[in-house]
């Protein structure tokens, strides 16, 4: 009975969190000073299209109307909220009148594909290496940790530029542009090979920075915390093989918080990876979101951020529900 009650409560919190996040984002976005109408008019004029001043005045009014930017905020909010339930965000503004759903759908597979795969790979690699390298005395562990600590703070953009310079320019192993050659309507082997080739470098850069940097460092510090625990020291004194200690004690205790973190990371991939997309010319949601925010395109911004909010909330929900299965201590409560 109690578990059902807890389950029910958890779902309610889930829905409430999403609603609140949505509202908060909507409110904050109202204050972004950019206006898509002015951007458009500026681009028409700087492209030398001949408009006489009267026409511009009228055009402005017309555009405000067309984009639905006039009107009462409360009305707008409820309109958005209504459609949000159906995951329907209306027409985007930076690519009017193409619906938000369409331009998100174009990029969703790329973002989800690249980021989920790299998240999982970095997580596995980082955690394993991190736990293995938590041994204080060994020289290799210390070197690895030293490398990780030095590599991690290097600004990603510069790191990526260096990788590109070495592997796409000096030794041209990888293409300079990401994506796929959709020259044929169906995916051929040629396309698949190209897709893999062009995804390797961005994936590599993410794995190195995220896996060898973030996950490695966090798991190795968690492992070191475990090593300070009494039961660990006792286990050593008892003479257990270090393999066993690793598996039963260190890994288990490190994995649990890391799973939570992985869940959150996976949930958050829907906002894309802006710098990766920009530097590697890889299609994705991050750049779209960035341009949407700076262009004052509220429907698209709301759309992508809502996806992200749902993703993270769903991830936390799932984690909360399966946590008792993973952590016996929680089960008893």
């Amino acid at each position, binding site marked *: 009975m109690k578990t059902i009650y807890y389950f029910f409560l958890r779902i309610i*919190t889930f829905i409430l969190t999403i609603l609140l996040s949505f509202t908060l984002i909507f409110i904050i976005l109202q204050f972004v000073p950019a206006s898509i109408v002015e951007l458009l008019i500026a681009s028409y004029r700087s492209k030398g299209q001949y408009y006489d001043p009267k026409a511009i005045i009228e055009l402005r009014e017309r555009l405000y109307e067309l984009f639905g930017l006039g009107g009462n905020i409360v009305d707008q909010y409820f309109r958005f909220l209504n459609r949000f339930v159906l995951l329907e965000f209306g027409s985007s503004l930076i690519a009017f009148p193409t619906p938000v759903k369409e331009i998100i759908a174009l990029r969703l597979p790329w973002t989800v594909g690249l980021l989920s795969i790299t998240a999982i790979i970095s997580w596995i690699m980082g955690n394993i290496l991190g736990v293995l390298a938590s041994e204080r005395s060994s020289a290799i562990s210390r070197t690895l940790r030293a490398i990780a*600590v*030095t590599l*991690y703070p290097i600004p990603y953009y510069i790191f990526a530029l260096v990788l590109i310079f070495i592997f796409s320019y000096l030794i041209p192993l990888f293409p300079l542009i990401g994506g796929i050659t959709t020259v044929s309507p169906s995916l051929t082997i040629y396309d698949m090979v190209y897709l893999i080739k062009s995804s390797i470098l961005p994936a590599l850069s993410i794995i190195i920075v995220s896996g060898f940097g973030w996950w490695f460092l966090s798991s190795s510090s968690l492992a070191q915390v475990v090593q300070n625990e009494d039961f660990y020291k006792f286990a050593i004194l008892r003479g257990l093989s270090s393999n066993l200690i690793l598996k039963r004690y260190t890994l288990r205790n490190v994995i649990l918080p890391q799973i939570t973190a992985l869940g959150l990371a996976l949930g958050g991939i829907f906002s894309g990876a802006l710098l990766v997309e920009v530097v590697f010319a890889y299609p994705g949601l991050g750049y779209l979101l*960035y341009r949407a925010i*700076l262009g004052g395109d509220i429907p698209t*911004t709301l759309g992508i951020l809502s996806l992200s*909010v749902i993703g993270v909330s769903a991830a936390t929900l799932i984690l909360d529900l399966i946590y008792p299965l993973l952590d016996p201590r929680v089960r008893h409560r």
Partner: protein
Amino acid sequence: MISVVKRIMKIIKSDVKVYVGTLIFILLLIFALISFLAPSWHKAWYFLPRDQLPQLSSDPTYWLGTTTNGRSVFWSLARATLNSLIIGLVAATLAAHIGLILGILAGLRSGVIGAIIMMLADVFITIPPLPLHVVLVTIFKEYISLPLLGLIFVIPSSWAWPARQIRALVTSLREREFILTSLLSGNTTRRILLNEIFPYTFGWHLVNFLNTVLFAIGSEAGLAILGLSLMREDTLGMMIYWIIYFNPLYRGIWWWVIPPIVVLILIFVSLYLISTGLQDYFNLRFKR
């Protein structure tokens, strides 16, 4: 006062990691403070000859060479270190403490207040940080100055996670026996807070504080790369922005690219060493 200082010195000397870390950090601080000695023209563009190699001389201006826009790398870097550290410290102080206070509150008072705080924390956790930063900076860009930059964008995204962790810690502590004993023996909530809970959370809090400093500096760098930081000020992020803008990387002007990266690495390394060393110290201390 003196005893506090003595205590700190003892902690620092206790672990080689903390010792080395603090040493590096102090060196960085000195470097940052040297920027106050910078000549009045150090911000001017095209004042010095462009793209000069580093030269050793009595005048530190040329020690790291000059940039493509005619500035001294040495003075820009010193000022950038100072400003980035300020941003990091301001943001971290506020964010970490807000997180701490709210977390403890939520942990102790698990009724409505606790639920509201946790709900808010969850909301902020679900909102992805980079887009939130971009939105906030776009809104406040024209009105902010250097120290406020840290406030504006870092706090919303970095108070929530610590608050949650602290609350979890506090709730688990609450159920431990020694709290119960304390309560039964008549201690007020406040005293429990101070004497029993605080020491436990302090260690975590300190580590979190250091991590938030790094997060703030990193976020500022990330935003600066997009051109959304303060154009006129030197920060490590802005240095990276100009490095991307003028592309010295591909033109072989290494003396402009390497020093800020080295400084970033040193900041991270020193804080990382201090935080892991302190982690050990607090863990050991409480095991006894």
